[in-house]
Structures are given as C-alpha cells and as structure tokens.
C-alpha cells in the first residue's frame, strides 16, 4: 500500500502573503485533456493507464517543479486519501474509486498539484497563502506551457480547451480565493457578499468546495465563467474589483464591531479561546467555529500569544483524516472528539513563564 507523508512545511499554511488578515489562500486551477483519448468518464482502463504514463513522464521533471512526488491514489489507503482532500490537494470525487488515478505534488511546499484522471485527464492547481492570484497564475501558466511541450491538449478554436463538462470549457481556468469573514458573519452581512459575487457571475461556497456549508466563517469565491472571458480579464476582475471590495467590507465590519460592540466582540473572542484551551470533547465543526473567533481576535490584536500559523495548522489537524494521521491510528467519532480536544489544548497552551 502506497503512503503519502505530508511535509511539515507547507507553503500555504505559512501566512506570509498580502491581506492575510482576511485572505487565507489563493488558488488557480486549469482543466486540461489529452488530445486523441476520450474524456475520463468514457475511458477504458487501458486509456486511463495511458494517461497515467503520459502524465507521470511529463510531470516528474525538474523543470515542472523540484521534488515532484507521484502518488497513485487507487493504491492509497482511504485515510491517506482523506488527508489529501483535507489539504485541498485532491477533490472528494478524486479520492473515490479504484480506477487508475493519481496526483503529482510538489514537495515539500505542496504549492503545485496535478490531479490525473479526475473529471478531466489533468487538473493543474497552484495554491498560495494570502491574496496572490497574479503570482499563482504566472506560475501555473509556465507549468501549463511546460506540460504542453510534452502533451498535446484537446483544443478547439471556437470552444478553447476542451473539458469533459461544458461548464469548464474555454480557458479551463478556475480562480478561488478562500476568505475568512467572521466580521461580516457576526454583523449578519454575508448576504451582501453573496449578492455582489452573484452580480459578477461568481460562486460563493464553503471551505471544502461545492455544496459544502461555510464552516469556521471560511468562504471561497470562485468564477463560473470560462468561455468568452480571457484569463487576464478574470484575474483583473478578481484582484482589482471583487476581492478588494470584500476585504474592505470585512475590515469595516471588524472595525465597527471593535468600536461599537467591543464587549460583545471581546466576549466572543476570549470565550472561544477559553473553550479551546479547556474543552475535553470537541466536534470538528465546533473546533472550526471557535478557531475562527480566535483568529479574528489575533487579527484585531486582542490576542497576542497565538500565532496565526498555529491556527491554520489547527484547522487542518481538526479534520478527521489529519487527526487520525497525527494520532497514528483509526478512531471512531467519539474517540476523535476526545483526541481533538486534547490536541488543541496542547497546541494552544499559554506560554509559561520561565522555570514553570
């Protein structure tokens, strides 16, 4: 059985980036298919293996990224697959099934990942901490060119890059920005964001993508239009219009809470930290919601002894897959709640004065 050992230093957990008080990560994804082979849903195993071989040869090269790791998912344990989903390196759909499929990941930063034989033959992704779409796009564009020097893509002059689902055809690009919006949530103004996004044909989703509820006040904004709008127009719309606007809404909401409802806000933040530092049982959703409030407290300077990086790590480690991986064995839900609480207590323990 293959294994995936997540690296300790994952770049997108670092919190070094711009606007990280509100923006958690920026992601760019490209959907691509190999010319001359049917799309994945119409592939027989021979086709799938052919794509795997081609992808492995094309992706495991220094010019793509140093330290590319090839992970054959169909040979991976369910737990390891779940860990990859929680790290946003593969989709939930990609984790399922036993047909030949893989993900290639740049190690140790995990900033580049390529899903092989998901809905499309290739789904290339770059993930960066903070607001960094332009930077992520430049990188993915170069990776795309490099792959295309080895693989002929399915392309049509009218429809662009051809994808299995017509909703991705054209540029095949998806920009996704993960935003932490606790201020707007507390102020009951999330609807305002949804409306602004909808007016621009953008989707607002929860932390784990399609259909998922926003937990821990994390929201993903992504484009839905891929045909008839260039990559650069889309980037411009995101980086110069919609995202700065949402960041500004959130900051105004936070400032207003601080000025007008300070005690309410402080109670929220310190109560959350208190629960995390003392609870003996923690559900995953509950942990996320509390971590979100602590994160808000850190961003507003109310809490000074908790680094944001620790909070980002706790969000991951609270997920069922990571939790079981950290403890080193499979656990049922009841046991996970106990272990989650103890892990969170340990990592958030206040720094003790010298000699204590």
């Amino acid at each position: 059985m293959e294994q995936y050992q997540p690296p300790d230093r994952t770049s997108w957990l670092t919190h070094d980036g711009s606007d990280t008080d509100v923006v958690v990560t920026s992601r760019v994804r490209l959907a691509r298919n190999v010319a001359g082979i049917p799309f994945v849903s119409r592939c027989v195993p021979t086709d799938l293996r052919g794509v795997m071989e081609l992808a492995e040869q094309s992706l495991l090269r220094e010019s793509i990224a140093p330290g590319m790791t090839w992970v054959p998912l169909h040979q991976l344990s369910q737990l390891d697959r779940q860990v990859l989903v929680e790290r946003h390196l593969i989709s939930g759909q990609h984790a399922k099934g036993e047909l030949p499929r893989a993900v290639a990941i740049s190690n140790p930063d995990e900033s580049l990942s390529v899903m092989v034989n998901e809905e499309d033959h290739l789904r290339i992704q770059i993930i960066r901490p903070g607001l960094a779409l332009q930077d992520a796009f430049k990188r993915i564009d170069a990776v795309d060119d490099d792959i295309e020097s080895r693989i002929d893509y399915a392309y049509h002059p009218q429809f662009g890059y051809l994808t299995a689902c017509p909703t991705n055809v054209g540029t095949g690009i998806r920009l996704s920005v993960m935003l932490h919006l606790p201020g707007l949530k507390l102020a009951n103004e999330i609807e305002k964001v949804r409306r602004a996004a909808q007016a621009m044909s953008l989707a607002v989703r929860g932390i784990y993508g399609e259909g998922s509820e926003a937990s821990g006040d994390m929201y993903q904004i992504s484009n839905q239009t891929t045909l008839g709008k260039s990559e650069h127009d889309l980037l411009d719309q995101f980086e110069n219009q919609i995202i700065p606007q949402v960041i500004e809404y959130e900051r105004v909401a936070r400032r207003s809470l601080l000025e007008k409802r300070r005690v309410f806000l402080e109670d929220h933040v310190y109560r959350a930290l208190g629960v995390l530092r003392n609870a003996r049982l923690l559900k995953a959703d509950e942990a996320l919601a509390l971590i979100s409030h602590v994160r808000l407290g850190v961003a507003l300077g109310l809490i000074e002894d908790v680094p944001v990086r620790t909070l980002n790590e706790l969000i991951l480690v609270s997920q069922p897959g990571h939790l079981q991986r950290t403890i080193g064995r499979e656990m049922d839900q009841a046991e996970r709640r106990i272990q989650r609480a103890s892990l969170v207590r340990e990592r958030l323990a206040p720094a003790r004065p010298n000699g204590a």
Partner: protein
Amino acid sequence: MPKCDMCDNEATVHEVIVRNGQRIERHLCEDHAKEAGVFTSQSFSAAGQVVKKVVMSQSGLAEQAQSSRSSCPDCGLSFAEFRQDGLLGCAKCYQAFADKLVSLLRRAHDGGDHHVGKVPKRAGTCFAKQERLTALRKQLKECVDLEQYEKAASIRDEIAEIESAPAERLHRSDSGEPAPSHRSSEEGEGD
C-alpha cells in the same frame, strides 16, 4: 461483417466520396485503405482496439452529417446520455453536438460562446490550418450544390495542397497504445 471491396478481409474503413455531385462508397480493409491512400482516424478506446471509422474524404460533408447525428461518431455518446450526467465523452463531442451545445454554453458562461484567451502553442497553429480547410470545404460544397464544377475543382486542388503539407508530428499509432495525437490535423476528418 462487411467485406473489403478488394479482398476477403473485414472492411474497417468506409469511405464516401462525392464527385461531381455523385456519391461513391468504398469499403476497404486496413491494408487496402493504406494502399488507396485513404486516411483513417483511429481512437484508443475499447481496450486498445482500433475503432472503426467512417471516413468521408474531400467532400467536406462530414460536418453536416455529424451535426445531424444524435450520437458522437468518435465515442458513441448520445446527446441524451450527455443530458443525464452533464459530461461529454470526448473532444469530438463538441463538434458532433455543436448546435445543441451553443445555447447551453451561453447560459453557463454569461453569454459566452467563443473562446477568448490562451491558445496552446502547437494545437493553435494546427487549428489555423484547420480553420482554413473548414472554410474551403464549405465553399466546395456550395460550388457542388450550384454545379460550378470548375471552381469546385480548383478549391479541391487547394484543399489537397494544404492537406499534403507535411504534418508536424506523427498522428497515428497502430500499436493501439494511447499515444496522444492531434485529431484535428488528421486529414479527411472534416472537423
């Protein structure tokens, strides 16, 4: 099993040629098709087996025939199947269902129905050639319909000239292994 016009082997290549408004059908085995210089298009589905293809050469009627067909000539997906799970079966599906897809694409993409943005370097140049061919084939059909055979002949010469220009890469793989190829630049395909 249909037999080859030239021998007793199974015919895997079916050719339809329209000459001076007359329809001529030919059924050939792989070897005789090669000998006759008929280009076949192959795909790698069905466990590496070579899938039989209908090749409509030169006349440029392929496009019209395809769009009226209810299933994709390359992968066999029907439009009804596509409606069920929302996934197309292969690149050729876009051509086969182009008419029906356009309105769906406009709805999904805020009115967009034409690609704007990045063009892959190699496939991009291939398609410039392909677009020229598509335009010429359309003209050819119009000429045949209007019985302007002299003009049609000169268009056909031009098509032949473009088509015989050396291909950038090898487009065929007879071993059945999924070597990727530009479908687009395979001659006689009419896309």
